[in-house]
Structure formats: structure tokens, C-alpha cells
């Protein structure tokens, strides 16, 4: 068996009727590696995440995780294989508390009847685990608030805590700093570096290249559903195809790609 967190993607294609969102993409991720995924809006980054996490099946191609073929598996089974993710357009349970949102990740795979009774000891273990995750993202003091009451940056950190609570060996972060101020972005990058990355493989989609080059040693660039470049951050960002995809011309080299 391959070491935990190994991802192999071959010839992955997704068509939505006439639209081809992703075309013939190959990608390999080794155990413990951090990969940055960039590309203009609509280039297929979120589609790739949705395919890996089983939101919908691919039209063609293969995904294997830790040596097992997971192509077309339902989302709940993929989640139980310890692939976790966050969402570009925040997805929380807004009417539940911050605490309950993180606890949600710990239901995975437990049989239905065991959900009806949680013993005192198990409850304490659960409470400690949830509070540890909340402390890591700096939300321990907001545990009893409703998720909807958190500001945007807090909601993004809550999503991260929830993803971490499931102890994923592969973590997919979809714009973890989307909509954040520079200070909040720095804070998020630090949380990811200290608590999310050690001991697991990570793929980060992010428009903020400073943050990406800090977290990831390898970048992969998508454009119109195809992979156009892959390699170290420096090499990729000097690649003329990449510059053209982002900027059209070479003379307005803003370090930040356009954000929606």
C-alpha cells in the first residue's frame, strides 16, 4: 500500500453538457507534500476539488488515493478515506453552534444507533478533540456561538477546524483566505502552516500568491480546464503561458492575480 496521503490523477475530464470544465488533467501528489493550485476564475480548480471529494463523478479519467481507485465513489465514502476539504463559497451549518460544526466532522462512519447514545468518557474525548481544533484556529472562546454569528474570517477558520477534526491525510483547501484582509490572510497562512500541513498532504487553491509561495513548494496552473504548467513557484510564475493566462500581456506584472 502506498503511504498515506498519496494521490494519483490520470486523464481526469469533466463535462457539463457542452461545457468542458476539466480536460485530461494528470496530477500526482506524494505523501506529506503541499501543492498550490492556481488559475484564473473558471479554470477548473473547484471542479477538480469536487471530483476528488466525490461531489460528482468524472466524465473520464481515474483518481486513486493511497493506491485505491476512488473514481466515482460517493462523497461520504471518500470522506471516510480521510480526504477533507473546505469550500470557496463557505459551507457551514449556520444554525448550529461553532462547537457543533466541528463535532459534525466526527460523525463519520459511526453506525446509526451509536449516534443515539454517547457515553460520558467518549463525550469527554470528543469535547477535548473539538476544543483542541477550535483552539488551533483561535475560536475556542466562540464555541457556544452560532456559526452564522462569526465574521467571514472566523467562518473560514471554522471550516478549517471542521476539516481538521476529521483527521484527513489529504486536505483540500479552496481559497482559505478568500475575502480576507491582509492581516487575516497572514493569520490564516500561519494557522495552515502550523496546524494543517504537518503530517498530511495538502492541495491549496488560492489567488494570493504570497501565501501560496509561503506554503507550497510546488505549483500547478490550470487554464480553461487544462493543466498549463507545473513546477516550483519561481519557475511557474516566470512561465510565459502562465503570465499570458493571467495577464494577457507581460507588462503589468502585479504579483496578485485578479480576484473576482
Amino acid at each position: 500500500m502506498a503511504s498515506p496521503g498519496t494521490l494519483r490523477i490520470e486523464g481526469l475530464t469533466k463535462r457539463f453538457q457542452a461545457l468542458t470544465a476539466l480536460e485530461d488533467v494528470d496530477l500526482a501528489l506524494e505523501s506529506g507534500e503541499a501543492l498550490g493550485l492556481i488559475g484564473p476564475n473558471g479554470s477548473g480548480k473547484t471542479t477538480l476539488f469536487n471530483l476528488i471529494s466525490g461531489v460528482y463523478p468524472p466524465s473520464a479519467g481515474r483518481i486513486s488515493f493511497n493506491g485505491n481507485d476512488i473514481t466515482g465513489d460517493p462523497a461520504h465514502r471518500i470522506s471516510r478515506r480521510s480526504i477533507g476539504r473546505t469550500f470557496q463559497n463557505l459551507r457551514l451549518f449556520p444554525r448550529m453552534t461553532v462547537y457543533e460544526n466541528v463535532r459534525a466532522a466526527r460523525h463519520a462512519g459511526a453506525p446509526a444507533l451509536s449516534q443515539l447514545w454517547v457515553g460520558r468518557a467518549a463525550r469527554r474525548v470528543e469535547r477535548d478533540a473539538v476544543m483542541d481544533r477550535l483552539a488551533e484556529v483561535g475560536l475556542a472562546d466562540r464555541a457556544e456561538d452560532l456559526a452564522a454569528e462569526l465574521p467571514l474570517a472566523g467562518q473560514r477558520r471554522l471550516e478549517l477546524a471542521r476539516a481538521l477534526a476529521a483527521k484527513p491525510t489529504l486536505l483540500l483547501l479552496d481559497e482559505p483566505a478568500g475575502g480576507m484582509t491582509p492581516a487575516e490572510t497572514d493569520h490564516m497562512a500561519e494557522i495552515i502552516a502550523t496546524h494543517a500541513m504537518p503530517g498530511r498532504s495538502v492541495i491549496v487553491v488560492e489567488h494570493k500568491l504570497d501565501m501560496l509561495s509561503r506554503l507550497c513548494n510546488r505549483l500547478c496552473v490550470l487554464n480553461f480546464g487544462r493543466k498549463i504548467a507545473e513546477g516550483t513557484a519561481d519557475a511557474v510564475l516566470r512561465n510565459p503561458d502562465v503570465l499570458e493566462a493571467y495577464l494577457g500581456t507581460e507588462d503589468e506584472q502585479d504579483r496578485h492575480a485578479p480576484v473576482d
Partner: protein
Amino acid sequence: MDDFTISVISNIGLFSFVALSAYLLLLTGEISFGQQAYFALGAYGAGIATVMWGWPLAIAVVWAVAIGMAAGALVALPTVRLRGLYYSIATLAFAEMVRNAFLIFRYRREVDGFEVGPAGAEGFRDIRYIYETGISSFEYMLLIYALLAGVMLLFLLMETARLGAVFRMIGDDPVLAEMQGIDVTRYKVLAAAIAGGIAALGGCLYAHMVTYVEPAIFNVMLGVHALAYGLIGGLGTAFGPILGVIIDIGVLESTRAFSGYRMIVFGGLVAVILIVRPRGLLDETLVHRVRLWLRPAR
């Protein structure tokens, strides 16, 4: 306690079962217009058991719950993947099928020199178990509330344990719930089975209180009321639907203050509450506040 008060309180208890049944499905995000079908199955099933087979009520209660759960799970299997309106229409169609089936269902047999049993559109008379065994209407009211307390205990246990959270997660965002490793389809079937069992339990108790049931009682208005109880009373706690029943039966119907206008007032109330408090009077936010206030500061 006079007979009128007892019958009002008993009715509140009885309709609480079908309200809780619809409420459980509302929690999982499904609007069922068909919970009256399980109420009917419980009423007929238990009535047949005590009248024609001579079973004691205690066993008939278990039998009714079993019928309701089995039917709930069976209907859920093909309908659980339907979303929104399609699910609502499917449950409505199923309930109408059940009602129409009872319109032609005849199962007659002679017991102690009398012919008894369901007689199609003429209904099912003489479900006289509690009168034959000398249970007073007051005692029967206590029985209704003892069983309702049991069901409420199940709900409260569910809310404090994980199962309630799982149902609410599915109701909030089924895709996200799925991504937390939850087999949404399986839990929806489970919810439908429990909901069917609860409604059938109510139907069983109803049939034995009124001694006579006919298919017309189980028309879609019963299902609409069951839904409205949760929507008025609130989806934050299982006390919500019961509050809804109390408002409707305890206030609108029984005080006769709105005699003749009851349905108009009730309909207006549903509309107003859906606008000003879309998750009902006892909604999640209020329940959360109360819970924080009750809990000692940590």
C-alpha cells in the same frame, strides 16, 4: 375534569404524534404531505388487531408502530432521492393511494355474533377495546400522554446525542453532510421509518379513543395540519410542534372564539409566521439562547 376538557387534552396529545412525525422529516429538510397515511395505517392496523384478532391494546400499539416504521422505510426507499417539491408530491400521492385503498378495503368477520371490521367507505366501527376493558376516558388520556412522553424522551435524547445533529445537518445541507462521511440516504430512510412509526402510534391511539374511523378522516388536510404545527410552533425543539397543536386545537378549535373562522385564522397564522419567523416560534436561535441561559457558566 369534565368530558370536554378531557377530549380536548386527549386530542392535543393525539395530534402531537402526527405533528412530531412531520417535524422529524422537516428536520431532515423534507416536506411530507403524507404523514396522515401512517396515522391511517396505525388506526386500521391496531383496530383490526384488537377488534378482529382479539389482541390486547399493548400488543396492538407495538404492532401499529411496526407497521408504520415498515411502511415509512418502504416508501422512503424510492422517494428518498427526490428533492423538494418532487418529494412532497410523491408523499402526497402515496397518502392518497392509502386513503383510496381504505375506501375499497373490506375485511369483515363475525366476532361474538356481530359482523365487524373495515367496510370500505362506510368506515370501521366499534373499535371498543377501551370500553370493553373499562378504561375511563381520563385513564386513556393518561395513557396517551405516557406514550407521548416516551416519544418526547426519544426526541430529547436524539437532540442531546449525535443523531439529532446528523438529521439537522442533512436538513441544512445534504451535500455538506455527505462530505462529513454521513450516508445521507441511509439516515433519511431511518428518519422516514421513525416518523412513520410515530404517526402510526398516534393513529392507533386515535382509533381506540373515537371507536370509529373512516378514510375521509385521513385526507390531505390532516397532513397539512401536521406540517403546519411544526412550522408554527418551531423547528428548534420537539416542543415546537406540540406548541403548534396547542395553539390550533387548544385555542382556535376548543375555545370556539373563532367558530366558523378557524381555518381562516389558522391559515393566516401559518402565513404570518412563515414571513416573520420562518423557522417557527421556537426556532433554533431562540432554543440556542434558552440553552445558553439555562446552562451554568463554564
